[in-house]
Structures are given as structure tokens and as C-alpha cells.
């Protein structure tokens, strides 16, 4: 299988890439790692007239912390997130989410910015980034804006990006051992997309009473969904496995839960509370381990 013919551009700078993207509009498509786009082009599900390949643009793949905020260049690969010592100590949930995307070969090429812009509802990052309150720096030839993760995802494969815009940076707040966290997904095999994805962040006071809970699911709707009922059930309660079980039982999926050959909506609704309970327990265990 080979893609349809396309005009190929591999600019050396971000500005050039954005100018080209502005020129081609709907006919142009950015290629980052290409690990989703190229298969779609081979299957002829996508046939962009112009590819603006970002592979020759240096410096957009750094991972740095400044003033408690971690800034990740959009072209950082999943592998570099997975291996990042900074993320492992200051935002480990993101390193873990990166480590179970696709397989090693895909993670060597695929990028966080590409995955975000592609907006597959079953992808790993989206629930994690919403739970983290991440912000995306979005640029076009005209200028720059910052979009909150929660406002970015609009529908299946649809985002707040305009045709001339590119995600250039991802910003998340760093955290330490005071936060209990977990990212997990239920999938048929390790390398598969999630049937249910869960991101959990828990904060507590000195007595392990929950002060803040962020629980976001992926793959159960066109966009990541915050489980507000579960969050409300946790805050103010001592973080125990009984509290996790009680809160997880509140998990409720909406009427846009997808059905496909791997899992119908009823199955996802059945397993989602189990996934939430397990993720909450893992997060609580991490949090209580900090005191030891």
C-alpha cells in the first residue's frame, strides 16, 4: 500500500512550516512522527494534497521545567517522554502514559504534539492531559494562543485547531510525591488502543483526607470525560480502598459511549467502574508509600 501522491515540503524552521500551512489551509497537513497519519494515507482514509513534514525542524522536542511548570516541545517523541528523568520525577503520570503507547518502534517516531492534534478518543495522553489541567501553545503564522486541554478536544478526531494552526508546546504543572497518581488502560493487548483509559490525580492533607481529586476517562466518549461524581465522592474522605470502591461505583458513562468490534457501550459501562477503582487504589498506594 502506498499513499496517493502529494506535494512534499520539509521546511527547516517552524516559521516556514507555519507559512506553508497557512498557504495550503485545508489542503495541507502537518506530519510529525507520521505514525497515525501515514497509515491513514496508505489506507487512503486521508489524502492530503500537501504534506508539511516537521522532521527537519530542530529544537521543538525539548522537555524542561521552569518555575514549577514543565514545557514539552510538541515534537518530543513518546520515547523521549517515557525516558525523561525530569518527567519521571516531576510528572510521572505523563511518562507512564507515554510508555504504553503503541510499541517501541511507534514510540521512537510518534510525538506528543502529533498525538494531541490527531485526537484519537482512545489515545493515552488525552485523559491524562485533561486531568493535569495541561495547556497547549498553539501557533499559526499570525500569532500564538494558549488553549486548555479541557477546551481543546471537540469530537472524535476534531480539535480546536484551525487549519493554519499547530500545537507547538504542552505545558503542565510539575508535582512531587505529595500527589497520588495513576494512568491505566484496559486493552486487549499491551500495544492496543484503550477500551477504557483512566487518569487519576489525588491530593490529600497530612491525615490522608482527600483535598482534590481529578479523575478523567478516555475511550468512553468522543472526548475525554471528567468523572465529576467520582471526584465529589472522594473529596473530604480519608483515602482508603473502601473510599476508592465507593467512589468508583459512582462512575457513569454518557450516551455517546462508543461501540466497536472490540467492546460495545454496555461492556465499557460495565468495566469502567472497575478500571476507576483499580486506578484509584494504585494512586492511593503511591500516595501512602510517600510517607514510608
Amino acid at each position, binding site marked *: *500500500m*502506498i*499513499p*496517493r*501522491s*502529494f*506535494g*512534499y515540503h*520539509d521546511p527547516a524552521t517552524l516559521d516556514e512550516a507555519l507559512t506553508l500551512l497557512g498557504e495550503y489551509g485545508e489542503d495541507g497537513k502537518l*506530519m510529525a512522527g*507520521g*505514525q497515525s497519519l*501515514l*497509515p491513514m494515507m*496508505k*489506507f487512503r482514509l486521508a489524502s492530503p494534497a500537501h*504534506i508539511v*513534514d516537521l*522532521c527537519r525542524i530542530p529544537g521543538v522536542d525539548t522537555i524542561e521545567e521552569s518555575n514549577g511548570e514543565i514545557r514539552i516541545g510538541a515534537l518530543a517523541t513518546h*520515547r523521549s517522554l517515557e525516558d525523561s528523568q525530569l518527567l519521571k520525577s516531576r510528572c510521572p503520570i505523563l511518562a507512564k502514559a507515554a510508555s504504553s503507547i*503503541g*510499541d*517501541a*518502534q*511507534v514510540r*521512537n*517516531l510518534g510525538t506528543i504534539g502529533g498525538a494531541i492534534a490527531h485526537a484519537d478518543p482512545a489515545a493515552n495522553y488525552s485523559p491524562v492531559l485533561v486531568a493535569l489541567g495541561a495547556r497547549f501553545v498553539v501557533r499559526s503564522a499570525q500569532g500564538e494562543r494558549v488553549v486548555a486541554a479541557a477546551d481543546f478536544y471537540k469530537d472524535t478526531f476534531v480539535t480546536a485547531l484551525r487549519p493554519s494552526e499547530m500545537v507547538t508546546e504542552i505545558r503542565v504543572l510539575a508535582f512531587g510525591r505529595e500527589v497520588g497518581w495513576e494512568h491505566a488502560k484496559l486493552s486487549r*493487548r*499491551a*500495544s492496543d488502543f484503550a477500551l477504557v483509559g483512566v487518569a487519576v490525580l489525588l491530593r490529600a492533607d497530612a491525615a490522608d483526607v482527600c483535598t482534590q481529586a481529578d479523575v478523567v476517562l478516555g475511550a468512553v466518549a468522543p472526548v475525554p470525560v471528567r468523572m465529576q461524581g467520582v471526584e465529589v465522592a472522594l473529596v473530604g474522605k480519608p483515602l482508603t480502598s473502601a473510599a476508592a470502591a465507593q467512589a468508583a461505583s459512582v462512575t457513569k458513562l454518557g450516551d455517546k459511549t462508543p461501540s466497536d468490534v472490540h467492546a460495545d457501550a454496555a461492556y465499557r459501562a460495565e468495566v469502567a467502574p472497575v478500571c476507576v477503582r483499580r486506578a484509584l487504589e494504585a494512586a492511593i498506594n503511591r500516595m501512602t508509600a510517600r510517607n514510608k
Partner: protein
Amino acid sequence: MNRTIQTRVNGRKSIEENVEPRMLLVHFLRDRLRLTGTHVGCDSTNCGACTVLFDGKAVKSCTVLAVRAHGHEVTTVEGLAQNGKLHPLQAGFQHEHGLQCGYCTPGFIMAACDLLSRNPAPTEQEIRLGLEGNLCRCTGYHNIIKAVQWAAANLAEGKSDHV
């Protein structure tokens, strides 16, 4: 517009003219450079039979545009043996009978190269997880795991002439 691409493949400089941007790296290697050790399996980023090293990192060459290789280094299974001596991974697959039909083998070996470069002493579980991007329909994987363990042990001892 077609491109001229200059690459270093298996240590040798190559200049190929008139490469169509939509040409995939695997076809470039097989059809242009006649390096047919890299196989086309599923052609859809699943099976890993087309795995090669791109600047030392394992990638699925059915999911990389050949034009991207311009200015970069590619290693295929043909580039592993040195001075007529098999690479320890090749020797390991032979020694531990890590193959039956052999179709998936070059991809497994190249993926294992990347795995061992990151983690020279992987556990069985780490090998299984590290090679999740490669499918073998013959062996049930047991001997493939043994082959990688054999290679890891022999690389650790600094031997590379175990044939």
C-alpha cells in the same frame, strides 16, 4: 517533485535520484538498494517485519517516508555481521532456534538491537514487552526470548564470534 536522497545505509553512503516523496522506506531499501533482508509483512505498522534502525532506533520502515532518510543513517539486517561474523543476535537466533519460517526474523533482530542498546540485561518480561511490536506466527515466542537472552549474555561477555 521527486527528490535526490543521500543516506548512509549499513555504513555505506548512498545517493539515489528521483525518489518519489510517497515512496516508503521499506520499498526504497528493497527495490532501490536491493536490500531484501527487510521484509514487508502486514504493511500496516503492526507486525514489525520491516523493522530497521533509523539513526540507531528501531522503526517500522513501512511507516516512514523514504525522503525522511535523507541525511540520516539506516541499518538493516544486512549491516549487522562484521567481517563475516554474525552479530550476537543473529547467532543467538541460530543457536536457540529462534525461528521457523524466518519471515519475521530480521524485524525481530533489529527490534532486539534497539532493545539491547537501551537495556543490555533485560528480564524475560522486559524482552516480551520490548518486542511487543513484532509478531511471529510460528514459534510461540519462547525461543525468540531465549535467543535475545543468549545475545545479551554474549554481548555482556564481549564475544561476537559465537558461530
